[in-house]
């Protein structure tokens, strides 16, 4: 009969913990078997740190994040319209600290993939056995003439990273005169939160309708020719605010002149390939790319913009022992146009995959079979919401989009032969579910 030495005994103990979330006795967990550093404390990074500790308390986990408080982008459009207090979207890092995550608030300046260390601006250095990169997206201001980061923080907020700019855009909206024009410029896909710009248009319209700005116009200048949950948005826009000619909301596709190339913050105009548009508020969402620290490290292998990873583990294709999750990575069934959406829930799901893969690897156990899911709600009125769900599996080391387990809320009710409009009560329920989803997602990432 085989006997165990102490090392393998520890493996067995934490292996059991890994798979069934048993509590490892303190005396066995005291010696860290591996050091994992997580860079970035958004939904992805926080969830990764949390699940690593949940699955194996024997692993030493350090989370490095600049900010001390995180604001959820999901549902932050409701803050702009005054429907939601921004504090309901915030989470701190005490929950993770209580789970034994070493939380370090610092700016990561460099990663050395050879010596396996992470350096921060304040001169600290963190050695790692495995590194999880979750830096989120960088916004490329230089892609639009006349736009700068400074302008985004003052006159032309993108409000695409929830926080001070969300509140700034809300203030601008409150000050907008009746008959004013609110322009939203949408970057070329892929970008964070695919339905976000269109939900924002609805939230702005709702605010205007209920706050004496019934003559306001919302103009969406889109760099793309279609968009997420389109039939659902168009139905709601039409029913609630008026859409198209004479309506409150107008959408211009990329092919018909929606691509903004230049902005003038003094004249408050933006220039597209076809036309100039004057706005009282110009909300330019600049094009996205993987966070700088990931690009600097050479992880952005797809056109220098996005980080490619391995389906079974989320490990970078560029560097061993470095994993990339969240909005910086690219994955899914790209050939059929079913890539991973850049969403909070997707990042949370990827984090669970990376945590399980790492725990198995660090314990010498066979790699688990990953599964990826996404749920994302959009709220377009007091009593009107809808959602999309995604399911991805991994077969033969490739992501497979499972169409049967994916899709948007129904566009019609009843049967194929006898379609009926979807009951308003159904749309209203999704508003309630959106709130419950966000609360659980925050807890599943930060608590």
């Amino acid at each position: 009969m085989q006997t165990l030495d102490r090392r393998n005994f520890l493996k067995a103990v934490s292996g059991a913990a890994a798979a069934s979330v048993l509590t490892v006795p303190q005396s066995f967990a005291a010696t860290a078997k591996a050091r994992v550093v997580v860079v970035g404390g958004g939904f992805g990074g926080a969830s990764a740190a949390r699940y690593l500790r949940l699955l194996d308390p024997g692993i030493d986990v350090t989370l490095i994040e600049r900010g001390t408080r995180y604001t959820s982008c999901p549902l932050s459009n409701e803050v702009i319209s005054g429907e939601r207090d921004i504090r309901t979207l915030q989470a701190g890092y005490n929950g993770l600290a209580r789970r034994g995550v070493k939380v370090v608030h610092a700016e990561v300046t460099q990663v050395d993939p050879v010596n396996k260390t992470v350096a921060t601006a304040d001169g600290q250095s963190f050695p790692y056995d495995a590194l999880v990169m979750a830096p989120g997206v960088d916004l490329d201001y230089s892609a639009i003439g006349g736009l700068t980061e400074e302008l985004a923080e003052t006159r032309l907020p993108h409000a695409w990273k929830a926080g001070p700019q969300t509140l700034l855009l809300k203030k601008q909206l409150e000050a907008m005169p009746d008959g004013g024009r609110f322009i939203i410029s949408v970057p070329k896909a892929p970008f964070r939160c695919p339905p976000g710009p269109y939900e924002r248009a609805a939230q702005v319209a709702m605010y205007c309708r209920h706050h004496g700005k019934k003559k306001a116009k919302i103009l969406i200048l889109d760099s793309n020719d279609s968009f997420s949950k389109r039939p659902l948005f168009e139905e709601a826009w039409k029913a609630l605010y008026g859409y198209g000619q004479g309506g409150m909301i107008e959408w211009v596709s990329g092919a018909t002149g929606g691509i903004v190339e230049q902005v003038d913050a003094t004249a408050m105009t933006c220039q597209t390939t076809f036309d100039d548009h004057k706005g009282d508020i110009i909300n330019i969402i600049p094009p996205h790319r993987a966070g700088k620290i990931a690009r600097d490290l050479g992880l952005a292998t797809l056109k220098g913009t996005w980080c490619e990873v391995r389906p079974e583990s989320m490990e970078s294709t560029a560097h061993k022992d470095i994993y990339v999750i969240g909005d910086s990575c690219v994955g899914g069934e790209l050939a059929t146009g079913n890539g991973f959406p850049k969403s909070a829930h997707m990042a949370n799901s990827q984090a669970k995959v990376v945590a399980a893969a790492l725990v198995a690897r660090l314990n010498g156990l066979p790699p688990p079979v990953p599964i990826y899911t996404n749920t994302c709600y959009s709220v377009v009125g007091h009593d009107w919401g809808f959602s999309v769900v995604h399911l991805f599996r991994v077969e033969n080391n490739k992501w497979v989009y499972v169409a049967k387990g994916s899709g948007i809320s129904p566009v019609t009710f009843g049967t194929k032969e006898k379609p009926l409009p979807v009951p308003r009560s159904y749309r209203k329920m999704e508003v309630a579910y959106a709130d419950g989803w966000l609360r659980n997602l925050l807890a599943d990432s930060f608590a």
Partner: protein
Amino acid sequence: MTKTKTLLALALIGVCATASARGDIEMLARTCNGCHGVGGVSVGLSMPSIGGLPKEYLRNIMKQWKYDERSAITMNRIVKGLSDDEIDALAAHFAKQRWVPAPQQASAALLAKGKSAISENCEDCHGFTGSDPDVDAPRINGQWAKYMELELAKYRDPRFKMPHRKMKKAAQDMKPAEVPAAAGYFGAQDK
């Protein structure tokens, strides 16, 4: 190595072997946490806690959603991507978790109204506090009241396909004001 330690280690190898066989279902179950909370204990008022609900109940509703025998807002889409075996395993997994009630505050007036409403319509199948259900019914003591109101609204609306005849009838027999009262009453129960 002492004899005790060896025995403990062997016991743990046993756990480990079982665990790795179950590994995939754990991975799948974790995807539910995003909306239903870790271990199926929800902190979102509109999302139900599912940890500790009866296996039969969980399996039935997931299969009903999958085969379009029951309406839902989101779950009917999600479960269509799962195999029947996965549904069975998920039901077994969450049934094994501890039921953690989240008793919510309710006014004395609402509780009194709720108590009278539930004794007529709910108690038979769910028990006086919602903690002693029939085999095909969920526990609802300390379940989120907001969720239960939404669920009752589905049972009361003929456009929603809800297959449980007895539950449907009970929900439809309730007066509109009894719905939040009954939900509030069960939501307030800790045991």
